[in-house]
């Protein structure tokens, strides 16, 4: 069994008090409790404060480009589906720059988890609006306040039949860890949106602001009801529900591709001698 110590990586370069620390601890705990060894996990990240996360864990890492987490993660899973693949991104990374990839990852349904550190602001570039920043919020480059309506990633994912849609809160590490475990063990594309206070640039959505509003979906909540789940995902304001909003059993992408049914692509031996006859088809 792995230990939390084995997952200890580099020293984080985040601001003191950042909500990312609880997310980092929750991921490590989730992996340890699931008995997954560091060499069995690939964490793919983009750019942003969230993008640095895999450096602070010990595991296979691909820290790629801003917005491009999901294409890399999807293809890595197709190449070696024996790896646990977790994609990590911020709200700007996943919902802004990578919005198109997010939409299509939901359609493909690869067996990977997508953890989005949603702090409703751009942290690394110092405080500009993100797709989830509330309408009307003033920033250095939105002097009239944000003119767009904020995006609702959960509602969008549910509307597209994403096979697992959940939301957690960095301030409730225990609950977050359980959601991460559920996402990792779910078969299919699992979106876990994580409310993460940014202590430096977001003075509105603070730990206190969230604590006053969040509540957990109860045992009587049925995540298999599509319409109810959509309705629930619209709830945002004085009350913010957390938990597993939606689950939908769908065929997993890599299980539908004939080439990788017997064994992962990466373990298939190649010899040019075995394919040379291909040229005969052109005579």
């Amino acid at each position, binding site marked *: 069994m792995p230990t939390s110590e084995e997952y200890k990586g*580099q020293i984080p*370069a985040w601001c003191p008090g950042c909500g990312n620390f609880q997310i980092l601890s929750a991921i490590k705990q989730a992996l340890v409790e699931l008995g997954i*060894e*560091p*060499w*069995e996990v*690939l964490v*793919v990240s983009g*750019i942003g404060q969230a993008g*640095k996360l*895999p*450096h602070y864990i*010990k*595991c*296979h*890492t*691909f*820290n*790629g*480009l801003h*917005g*491009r987490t*999901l*294409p*890399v*993660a*999807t*293809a*890595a*899973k*197709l*190449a*070696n589906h*024996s*790896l646990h693949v977790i994609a990590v991104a911020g709200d700007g990374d996943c919902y802004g720059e990578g919005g*198109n*990839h997010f*939409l*299509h990852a939901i359609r493909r349904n690869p067996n990977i988890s997508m953890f989005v550190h949603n702090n409703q602001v751009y942290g690394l570039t110092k405080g500009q609006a993100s797709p989830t920043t509330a309408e009307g919020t003033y920033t250095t480059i939105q002097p009239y306040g944000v003119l767009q309506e904020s995006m609702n990633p959960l509602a969008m994912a549910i509307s597209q039949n994403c096979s697992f849609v959940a939301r957690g809160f960095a301030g409730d590490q225990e609950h977050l860890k359980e959601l991460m475990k559920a996402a990792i063990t779910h078969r299919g594309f699992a979106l876990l949106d994580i409310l993460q206070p940014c202590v430096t640039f977001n003075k509105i959505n603070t730990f206190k602001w969230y604590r006053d509003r969040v509540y957990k979906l109860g045992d009587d909540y049925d995540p298999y009801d599509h319409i109810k789940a959509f309705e629930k995902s619209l709830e945002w304001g004085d009350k913010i529900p957390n938990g597993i909003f939606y689950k939908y059993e769908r065929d997993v992408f890599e299980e539908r*591709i*004939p*080439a*990788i049914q017997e064994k992962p*692509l*990466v*373990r*298939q031996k*190649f*010899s*040019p001698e075995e*394919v*040379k006859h*291909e*040229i005969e088809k*052109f*005579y």
Partner: protein
Amino acid sequence: MGVKFLEYTLRIGGEAGQGLQTIGGALAKVFSRIGYHVFTHQDYMSRIRGGHNYYQIRFSDQKISASREMVDILLALDLNTIKIARKNVKDGGFILYDSEIAKQKLEEPEFIDIPFRKIALDVGKNSVMANTVATGAALGLLDLGLEALKEILRETFLRKGEEIVQNNIACAEAGYKYALTNCPRCEAFGIREPEEKRRILITGLQAIGVGAIMSGCKFYSAYPMSPSTGIMEYLASRAEEYNLVVEQAEDEIAAINMAIGASFAGVRAMTGTSGGGFALMVEGLSLTGMTETPVVIAEMQRPGPATGFPTRTEQGDLLFILHAGHGEFPRVIFEPGTPKQAFYLTNRAFELAEKYQIPVFIQSDQYLAESEWTFENFGLENLIYNDYRLREEDLKGVTDYKRYKYSSTGISLLAVPGEAGKHLVVADSDEHDEDGHIVEDSETRIKMVHKRLLNKLPLIKKEIEAPLLYGDSSPKIVLVGHGSTYGVIKEVVDTISKDKKVAMLHFSQIYPLPELEMFDYIGLLENADLTICIENNATGQFAKLLKAETGFGFSHQISKYDGRPFTIENLKEELNAYI
């Protein structure tokens, strides 16, 4: 002077959607199977129905490698084709048409009216088979026999049932007989039976696809874009047989990032696109440079800027591909001149990409992509496959694996994540240390620039093979080309070499430029009186590259930028101004 060799050019013209590719493809196969050398090229509009398109086939009992402006037979499927292409029919040539379809009877001697549609209805009970009648008629005009066509019709319609096969064969026979008996001048062709020989008939796109499969490529991700889509179509058609994963990405950004993800995870991966799509891939290209992830990229050029001519040809992206990507990192660019070279260079692209952990380009264009050539063989004995990726058993004795460990060659061990025991593989787009973790210090930065760039460059340069010299070995006139102009320049050199000391210098491995130690091609150019760089672009991009890298300037440049390839006639005409 030897015996004049036999060669004919046949053009099938009509609207998009009339089945030109079916007829052209079948005839090209027939000529190839009978034993002729074949060269075809396609000229079509960016539309699915209507307009004017053509498929041109040249066949000969000698090696051929380009298209002609003037044709012997025009098979016109509509009146518009006659209006547009009549001027391209040689004196003594023929125009096959159906006066019912053209709604006009044409009395001049070159016209042969064949009721394609009526025969199809009478014999095949379906006007759809008019194309089969036309294909048979073209062969009847040449009196080349029907056996090869029957075989091809059987292969093509096998899945649709025996009745369809038999009706098509009957239509081909009827068309053949009609043309043969209604062409009083056809003995003029006097076609000799060719020497029977098995030949491959293949396009540039297919050759790249075959090259990828035989190089162990297991993953191809792309977004459809003319003229590159054929690679994906071909690989998808072989996915089941060779266990390939072929994924249509949501955009080109995803396409290259997927190829990177698959390659990082341990399989040979490739992507393909054209100029506009490649523009979207540029950030990902830079990511391959920083993460040292091997990727092969096919960039099949078409005329730009922006959407340009979607279905036509140009060599306008050379300097773009050369300079694309922010930051400094090594790359290799190959630009094949023939499908056989495309096959060979795709294989080398995979070898070099993995050996040096760099991006390697197969740069080509619509002309080579969609032209069919014949070859006796593909030189499979030259195929190379070295697996540079390391798994658990390969890493025995390595106690502290570092993905970016410094080395004098710049090459660090490329471990497969998850298959390398407990070793962890960490890749980063940030500047990183040997372990792959983010750093900001200048000392590590300098070491990493040496590792991934400066140490590798001289080694990569040594891998690049010399350009091809064809013709006189100490020429006074040198025609220089790169990529798809190979065939036409070669044929032009053949026609003018009788009384001139002329040669072609052709580059198919264009970056890094080949070293001069193995072949001093700059010396050769300097000793010539006339050096002409021939390019399918407006600004002479290869000439600029050569000037920048070697200081050599050409005495003349010939540029063609109308979206069409050079034909033998128009290149000769351009050359007449200088020779």
